[in-house]
């Protein structure tokens, strides 16, 4: 798409520099921990060392005696106010502070408030908790075993089973499988991992006893929804709650749920009538807040000898930990996992998911992912590779043979989605050319003859992002629309506010570019503000790649409403009828007489100084956008790896990522999002895992054990593009922030498996640590 505006205006397609950067590069960001208020005090959480234990007693006397300690809150205290439990975002409840027993290691047991953070930590040390250990359930495959302990005594249903969910045609699918010439099966675990944004979660709860208002500075990806939930659960009138999400140091889904620490800080502030700051340590963040994945999946593909896929059958066990704190739309217990049919055209599929409890941290959040889409994309892209192995065919050829053809869009998938647009083979072709696929295959053949291990992995993923539409999607009952409000000042400058909240995505720049595109006001003249529920219009927030598809759309529609009013004003100023006017970004002019023009700045001034008779003053609009459908970004990723036989270490030699996210607002930011998402995908494929030992001790509970890639391990990313606009989005965009994290894990794993496929290897579970590869090489007799 060519640019319709000049670089100075900076509308769609211009790689303009980010407006938000100036404060960050000077150390002048304003993150939650930077909030300093008069009389502020500090909270520290006491946590359980055990994964499953009866709480015999919680003795707070010594802690309370420590000078500087102001309060110690226990579960019993909260129970008196009916706040010991809180609802999760998915039809379950979660203990704020434990009563009766604890269900996972690092569960919240007591909250100590003190004059300074060091004293609060000292006080927490002095809280004496007596536990009686109970049998621990770690393996989700044993959750339904009658010999396993029932974890949730609070539930009526005496079972560790949370939900069964299925979609598709079971009998038709079974029938295809019975008659299929070729079948392929993969058992794949998508390991439990944690988004680990560099800033942990935290808040400053500030109850003002004089005004009765509660202000919560919160690491929140969804400030408006959080305000409503605080009102509903806490019984505080919603007009008396103001949630402010200041600068957020990365979210990736981790900052969607409400955590016990937030609730405790609010309770403490209401009690002490002073501002209470609570900031997680890194270990608290990794061990207790929203984990992701932990999907134990089986996929089977049925195909003909010709390689045409005929059906997909998926069975999955979902480990949700101690409480089902999944953050996903209420009609979808397994999120949008049913996108697992992928980029391929076949009529029949069946997918079932069972959720279970274990003695692990609660969650099931969408980590840089639109609700389980990452698990789905990984599964189908692994399964297709296993099928290619079964058919002894090239995985690229197999994909191309089965891609949904461009003319078939909108495409109704066998599990019920309507894909908006796509040209999967186009992205594949660009990727193959960029990487030099045929040459690489030749090189691989030669290397194999020499005993060297090299692999090429391909992933042609399809995402489903941008929820709503509201008729199908809601979170805790709140419909998944989103919003934008634009106000044009008399001098032609603008401020706009959205219901979303950037956590690094660059909204202050990209939303301004949408306004620039639609109204011709330079992006540099447009201030974007998000995250203050007192000022911004209501919205569901930023996750699931929904900012551009939903709030971005709202911004375009609100701008078009402004343009419609501007046209009336222009006609008044130019003394002509509206029909006589044409628009180009930045001005209305008389058809055939371009010199007779009024700029948007002229019009803005007139909106306050010289409006037509009978017209109300001002130039502003708000839009609450309900998307007619989701958007379906896609792409092809190709990864080339070399394996060191001596160590089992996998070296990513090249990684080509061709993304199609429809029309692009800012190509620089899109590339940056792709680099970052690929790096997280790389981390998941090779490093990141929150493991548990058999006693339920967290094995990845700090950055000493939860491995993240540095600049040294991280490959250099090569990016490419195709552009298939979304037909239903106001400016044809689809969203991109999560694509690379969704699409890349399969490319990495496929590459490693490809390097070892001649040895009969068909699958390796992530994270692919060197020891796993080395063990395989040993087992296969490649090394001694």
């Amino acid at each position, binding site marked *: 798409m060519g640019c319709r505006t000049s670089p100075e205006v900076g509308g769609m397609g211009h790689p303009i*520099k*980010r407006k*938000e*950067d*100036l*404060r*960050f*590069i*000077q*150390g*002048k*960001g304003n*993150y939650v*921990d*930077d909030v*300093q208020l008069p009389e502020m005090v500090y909270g520290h959480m006491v946590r359980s060392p055990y994964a499953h234990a009866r709480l015999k007693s919680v003795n707070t006397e010594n802690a309370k005696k420590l000078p500087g300690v102001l309060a110690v809150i226990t579960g019993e205290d909260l129970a008196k106010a009916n706040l010991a439990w809180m609802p999760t975002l998915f039809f379950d409840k979660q203990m704020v502070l434990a009563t009766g027993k604890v269900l996972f290691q690092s569960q919240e047991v007591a909250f100590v408030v003190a004059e300074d*953070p*060091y004293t609060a930590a000292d006080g927490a040390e002095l809280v004496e908790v007596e536990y009686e250990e109970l049998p621990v359930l770690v393996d989700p495959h044993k959750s339904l075993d009658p010999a396993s302990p029932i974890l949730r005594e609070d539930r009526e249903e005496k079972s560790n089973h949370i939900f069964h969910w299925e979609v598709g045609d079971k009998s038709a699918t079974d029938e295809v499988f019975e008659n299929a010439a070729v079948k392929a099966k993969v058992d794949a675990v998508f390991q439990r991992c944690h988004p*680990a*944004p*560099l*800033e*942990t979660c935290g808040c400053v709860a500030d109850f003002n006893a004089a005004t009765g208002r509660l202000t919560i500075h919160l690491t929140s990806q969804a400030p408006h929804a959080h305000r409503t939930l605080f009102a509903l659960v806490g019984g505080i009138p919603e007009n008396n709650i103001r949630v402010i999400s200041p*600068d*957020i*140091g*990365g979210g*990736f889904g981790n900052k969607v749920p409400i955590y016990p620490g937030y609730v405790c800080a609010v309770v403490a502030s209401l009690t002490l009538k002073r501002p209470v700051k609570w*900031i997680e*340590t*890194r*270990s608290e963040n990794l061990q207790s807040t929203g984990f992701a994945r932990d999907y134990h999946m089986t996929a089977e593909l049925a195909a003909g000898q010709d390689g045409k896929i005929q059906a997909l059958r998926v069975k999955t066990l979902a480990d949700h930990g101690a409480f089902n704190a999944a953050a996903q739309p209420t009609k979808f217990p397994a999120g949008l996992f049913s996108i697992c049919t992928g980029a391929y055209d076949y009529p029949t599929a069946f997918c079932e998911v069972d959720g279970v409890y274990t003695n692990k941290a609660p969650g099931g959040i969408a980590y840089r992912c639109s609700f389980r889409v990452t698990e789905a994309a990984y599964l189908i892209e692994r399964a297709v590779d296993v099928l290619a192995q079964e058919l002894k065919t090239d995985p690229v050829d197999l994909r191309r043979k089965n891609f949904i053809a461009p003319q078939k869009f909108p495409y109704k998938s066998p599990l019920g989605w309507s894909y908006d647009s796509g040209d999967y083979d186009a992205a594949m072709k660009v990727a193959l050319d960029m990487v030099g696929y045929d040459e690489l295959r030749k090189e691989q053949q030669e290397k194999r003859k020499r005993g060297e291990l090299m692999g090429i992995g391909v992933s042609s993923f399809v995402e489903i992002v941008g929820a709503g539409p509201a008729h199908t999607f809601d979170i805790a009952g709140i419909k998944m629309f989103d919003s934008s409000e634009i106000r044009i000042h008399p001098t032609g400058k603008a401020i706009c506010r959205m219901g979303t909240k950037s*956590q*690094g*995505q*660059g909204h202050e720049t990209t939303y301004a570019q949408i306004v620039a595109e639609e109204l011709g006001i330079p992006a540099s003249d447009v201030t974007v503000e998000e995250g203050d529920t007192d000022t911004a219009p209501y919205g569901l927030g930023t996750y699931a790649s929904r900012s551009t598809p939903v709030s971005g759309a709202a911004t375009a529609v609100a701008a078009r409403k402004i343009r419609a009013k501007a046209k009336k004003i222009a006609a008044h100023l130019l003394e002509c009828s509206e029909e006589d006017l044409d628009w180009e970004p930045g001005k209305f002019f008389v058809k055939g007489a371009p010199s007779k023009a009024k700029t948007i700045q002229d019009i803005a001034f007139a909106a306050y100084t010289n409006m037509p008779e009978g017209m109300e003053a001002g130039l502003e609009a708000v839009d609450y956008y309900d998307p007619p459908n989701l958007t379906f970004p896609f792409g092809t990723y190709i990864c080339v790896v070399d394996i060191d036989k001596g160590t089992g270490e996998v070296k990513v030699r090249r990684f080509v990522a061709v993304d199609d996210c429809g029309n692009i607002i800012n190509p*620089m*930011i899109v*590339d*940056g*999002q792709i*680099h*970052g*998402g*690929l*790096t*997280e995908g790389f981390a998941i494929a090779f490093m990141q895992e929150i493991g548990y030992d058999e006693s339920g001790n967290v094995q990845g509970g*700090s*950055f*000493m054990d939860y491995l*993240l890639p*540095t*600049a*040294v391990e*991280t490959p*250099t*990313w090569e990016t490419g593009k195709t552009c298939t606009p979304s037909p239903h989005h106001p400016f044809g965009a689809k969203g991109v922030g999560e694509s690379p994290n969704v699409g890349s894990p399969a490319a990495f794993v496929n590459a490693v498996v490809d390097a070892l496929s001649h040895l009969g290897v068909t699958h390796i579970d992530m994270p692919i640590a060197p020891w796993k590869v080395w063990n395989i090489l040993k087992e296969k007799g490649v090394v001694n």
Partner: protein
Amino acid sequence: MAEKQLIRVKVNGRQREAMVEPRLLLVHFIRSIPGLTGTHVGCDTTHCGACTVVIDGKTVKSCTMFAVQTDGCEVLTVEGLMHDGNLHPLQEGFKEEHGLQCGYCTPGMLMSSYALLQQNPHPSEEEIRWGISGNLCRCTGYQNIVKAVQYASAKMEKGGKDGLSNVA
């Protein structure tokens, strides 16, 4: 609680005196006494580098050093990088090359890059990657951070050691 001790530390060129607990971490001192909140805490275990500052020319993760250990030292934080109201070439490079997203790692990245360019004004890509390997970034994938450091290296070459005169 041990008795408070007097420390004298020069922070970004300005002398500071404070009575501090011996256990007070340097990062908490920097964030609370001079109130310079650009230095962030990301991990508490010396891994992420968000708290990196430069002490007497060397990078230090200020979450793993006590404030009392800096008595008599000169500390440079991200807030001290600007010179005469101008951005340091590294700050400019991070903006120009899209070397940041959420911004949380950025101050630490800037300080590590600053120390790197002090020791090695023309680092290769590999040297840059090793030079910032004590700093984690969850957003950018490092690629544009490397470019940002290269940008600064080139700019400083042109402008002499511009921006490096306020070395702590």
